[in-house]
Every structure is written in structure tokens, then in C-alpha cells.
């Protein structure tokens, strides 16, 4: 039997192409960073989901011990089976919505701008954009035991002219990203300065 394996590199390329289409990438633009929240921040939802999965099992054993003949009654049996099924399906949906909330928070850094996409639940999303040359201040902070151990934290990007401040929440390796942002911002500022100078001459 022939096995088809998609190389990782190709998948990354597909994803980058999708992202380029999503942000309407300009011809001179190059995607430098694609950041998401650290996966550990999603683990709390995984634990909650595991607890929800266990709840009907525990409930079943409690009912069986307290009322041994309860499952013999047909109507109660039907209600319990249908109820448990609805409970599980709702738990799957909740888990999926939480995953969406986690995974669709995305920060894309190109050599020209930062695009901040924040998903709130299922029907709310905010997208903001910031030119790299406008960046005035970049601060990274790592607070707490887990963030320190696993090296993740927030990065605050502030501008002087506009009132848009972008916060990269719980991203991996915030210090390195901060350095990269400052470097990219400097390069973009030099480019714009040169462009303005050429236009004036």
C-alpha cells in the first residue's frame, strides 16, 4: 500500500500562503513572524473538558448505588441516555469554541506592519493594524511561575502618534520577539526616512 506523507515544510508553506491571502499581503511585504498564544494557556480548558467527560460516569455510579433499580425503568433509562448524549455534545461544542477563542488569537508581523487579530467567542473578532515605523516603545513582561518556567509572556507595543497599542498575549519567548520587533521597526524607519528624503530631493 502506498503511503502519502505531506512534508512539514509544505504545510507551513500552505499556511503562510493562506495567511498572506488573509492579510492581503502587499507585493513588497514579507511575513516575518506568525505568533499565537502558548499552548499551555489552552491546557486549563483541556482539564475542564476532561472533568466534564468524567462527570456523567461519576453520576452513573452514584445513581446505580443509591437507586439500584433505576435503570430498569424504561422511561428513566431513555431520558438518561438522551440527556447524557446532549451533555457530551454540549461539552464538545464548548471545548471547540474555547479552542477557537485560543487558536484564532493571532499576531502577524511583516517587514511593514503588525496585524493583531483577536477572537472573542464565536461571533466577535477585532483586527487592528500598526505600521512598524510608528513603534515608539516595546515592552515584554513575564509574570508568574509557569510563564517563567515555560518562557512565555506579554509584549506591549506602543506608538506615539496613533492611539492603537497592541498587546501580544502569552506568546512564546517574549524577549527574543521584542528584540526582533525593535530591529524590524528600526529597519522600517530607516526605509521610510530614506523614502521621504528621496521624495524631497
Amino acid at each position, binding site marked *: 500500500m502506498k503511503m502519502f506523507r505531506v512534508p512539514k515544510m509544505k504545510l507551513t508553506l500552505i499556511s503562510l500562503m493562506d495567511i498572506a491571502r488573509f492579510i492581503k499581503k502587499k507585493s513588497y511585504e514579507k511575513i516575518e513572524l506568525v505568533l499565537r498564544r502558548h499552548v499551555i494557556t489552552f491546557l486549563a480548558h483541556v482539564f475542564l473538558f476532561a472533568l466534564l467527560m468524567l462527570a456523567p460516569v461519576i453520576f452513573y455510579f452514584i445513581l446505580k448505588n443509591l437507586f439500584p433499580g433505576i435503570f430498569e425503568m424504561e422511561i428513566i433509562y431513555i431520558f438518561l441516555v438522551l440527556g447524557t448524549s446532549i451533555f457530551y455534545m454540549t461539552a464538545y461544542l464548548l471545548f*471547540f469554541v474555547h479552542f477557537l477563542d485560543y487558536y484564532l488569537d493571532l499576531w502577524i508581523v511583516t517587514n511593514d506592519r503588525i496585524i493583531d487579530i483577536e477572537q472573542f467567542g464565536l461571533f466577535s473578532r477585532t483586527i487592528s493594524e500598526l505600521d512598524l515605523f510608528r513603534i515608539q516603545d516595546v515592552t515584554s513582561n513575564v509574570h508568574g511561575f509557569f510563564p517563567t518556567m515555560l518562557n512565555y509572556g506579554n509584549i506591549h507595543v506602543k506608538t506615539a502618534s496613533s492611539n492603537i497599542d497592541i498587546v501580544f498575549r502569552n506568546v512564546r519567548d517574549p524577549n527574543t520577539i521584542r528584540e526582533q520587533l525593535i530591529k524590524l521597526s528600526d529597519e522600517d524607519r530607516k526605509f521610510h526616512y530614506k523614502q521621504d528624503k528621496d521624495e524631497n530631493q
Partner: protein
Amino acid sequence: MSIPLYSFLFAYILFLIFFVIFYILIVYHIHISASYTIFSFFITFFVGTCAILTFYFTWHLLSDVDWKKRVVLFENNSMTLFEKPAPIPLDENVPGTQDEVNFN
């Protein structure tokens, strides 16, 4: 008042339709946000598989149920207020409850 059992099945099917709509909506969100990666594919697949398995087990556990049966939700006694009450049956052994009482 009684209702047929299949009305609960209809309610369950309505819930399943609601579930499928939300599932498709979330997959659509992931797709349009350029976030279709191995990780998101795995989660989508996991949730989909769990839902199919849950539906299969529900169907398997309820396969022997006669859905045409009727369930009595509550006894309707309110009409007796407006109807003539049924006569109380007479007991021959208890004096005073017979039609003809012998005073001798």
C-alpha cells in the same frame, strides 16, 4: 396528559442539527482565518470523531425502544371539578350504607 415518546427523539434531532450548524460554523471560522494547521485539524477531527461516537452509542443504546409508546406527563384531574362525582359503592356489611335500613 400524555405525549408520544418520539417527541423526545425529535427534540434530540433538533439538538443534533444545532450541534452540526455550530460545528460547521467553527470549521468555517478556522478556514477563513487562515488557521488550518495540523493542530487545528487534529482538534476538529477529535471533536468530530467524539460526536460521531457519542451519536453511535446513543443510537445503539436506544435501538430497542418502542418510540410509539406514550408517556403520561401528569394525570388530568381538573375536569372532575365540573363533572358529577361518581356514586360511592355501598357496602352491605356496614350499617347505614344500605338503600333500605331496617329499624326493627
